[in-house]
């Protein structure tokens, strides 16, 4: 495996030495993104097997990308993961006509607190677009311009969506509390 001149940017920039192998870079990426990427996918997908498969395929794709001598950063990973999730959802839509899994988000982590489970239930009532944008901005702390680059839309559109998603979440939360 050849060495790489790698500049991994993203939430935190990472610079690895020229002698780093693709595997080294991937391990570093997994150290940084395994958890946030799983969290992101868990907001998009309805079951944890799908989260695991999409995350796994995303990291394998990253490895292939690195092997071709190309750089991989956080935004690239999120973009690939998102595409994998969309592929998965489209497939499920074809297979299961009765239930639109995009609208159901009912899995919880073992040992997850009731408070977080309640947040998930509220989130599940939002559209996938709303869930995604809230997660990327609030949880993963991407800037709106970065989110725009990931989703292929302008930063201005992200800001509008973010505002609306926040408002919808707030309204749902108030409704649930009352």
């Amino acid at each position: 495996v050849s060495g790489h001149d790698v500049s991994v940017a993203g939430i935190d920039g990472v610079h690895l030495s020229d002698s780093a192998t693709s595997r080294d870079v991937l391990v570093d990426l997994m150290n940084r993104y395994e958890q946030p990427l799983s969290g992101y996918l868990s907001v998009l997908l309805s079951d944890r097997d799908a989260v695991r498969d999409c995350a796994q395929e995303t990291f394998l794709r990253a490895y292939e990308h690195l092997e071709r001598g190309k750089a991989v950063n956080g935004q690239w990973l999120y973009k690939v993961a998102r595409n994998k999730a969309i592929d998965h959802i489209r497939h499920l839509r074809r297979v299961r006509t009765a239930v639109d899994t995009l609208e159901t988000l009912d899995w919880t982590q073992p040992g997850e607190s009731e408070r977080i489970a309640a947040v998930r239930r509220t989130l599940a009532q939002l559209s996938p677009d709303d869930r995604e944008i809230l997660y990327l901005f609030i949880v993963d702390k991407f800037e709106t311009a970065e989110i725009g680059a990931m989703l292929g839309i302008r930063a201005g559109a992200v800001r509008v969506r973010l505002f609306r998603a926040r408002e919808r979440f707030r309204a749902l939360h108030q409704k649930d509390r009352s």
Partner: protein
Amino acid sequence: VNRHDTHRRLLARCDELKGREAERLRAHLLVCDACRELARGYDVQDAMLRPLGQIRPPPALRDAVLASIDRREETNKEPRHTPPAGRLRTWFLGGVVAASVVIAGAFGATSLLDRGSPPSVQMALAKKGYTLLFSRAPAPIGRNVAKQIALAFFPGRVSGVRLARVLNGRAPAFGPGGRLCWMISIVPPDGPLLTQPGNTWLDAASAQGRALPRTGYLVVFVDAKRGTFVLASSADSA
């Protein structure tokens, strides 16, 4: 959009505001009770959502990814490595393959010449009652994962991977609506294929005392939802 709304939109993304925008919002919050209330609401929202980022990654994700890569690197080093029969037996006895494991269609020497030609495989399987509806749709188990599963058993010998809905009225394992599978073509080695020591088939259906094929295709199916090998066909001798 009035001025009040403009500030509400700024509040929605106040974490990223800098310079003049941040200053403008700060000044507005000093004089606007409604926006202060909204800012508190958004703070609560942030506090509610942020724990979602502490989700534990799926178990064994990292191990699975790194194992796949290791296998791939190993495969690249030894492209035609034949797994020792003892190791295969251990895998089987250890229950690596959870569902039924029955392998494979093996086809004549001519098939080897047109390796990668789907019609020849399709025709050979059709004789055994199989209908393959090839698909480009995404599958729950991805192509790479299916390939890695096959490579675990046939290092360096996977020559093609295609997704297909497999139907066979004679084989209950495929059910009435067929079964979505990755069809994986295995390049035959010079030595024994998926056999026990003594050069006999591992699976009962393919045994029947037949001679083992030395040339041609070996085709295995990996269930595209569960990742397990499924029944394909008994073998024709080459």
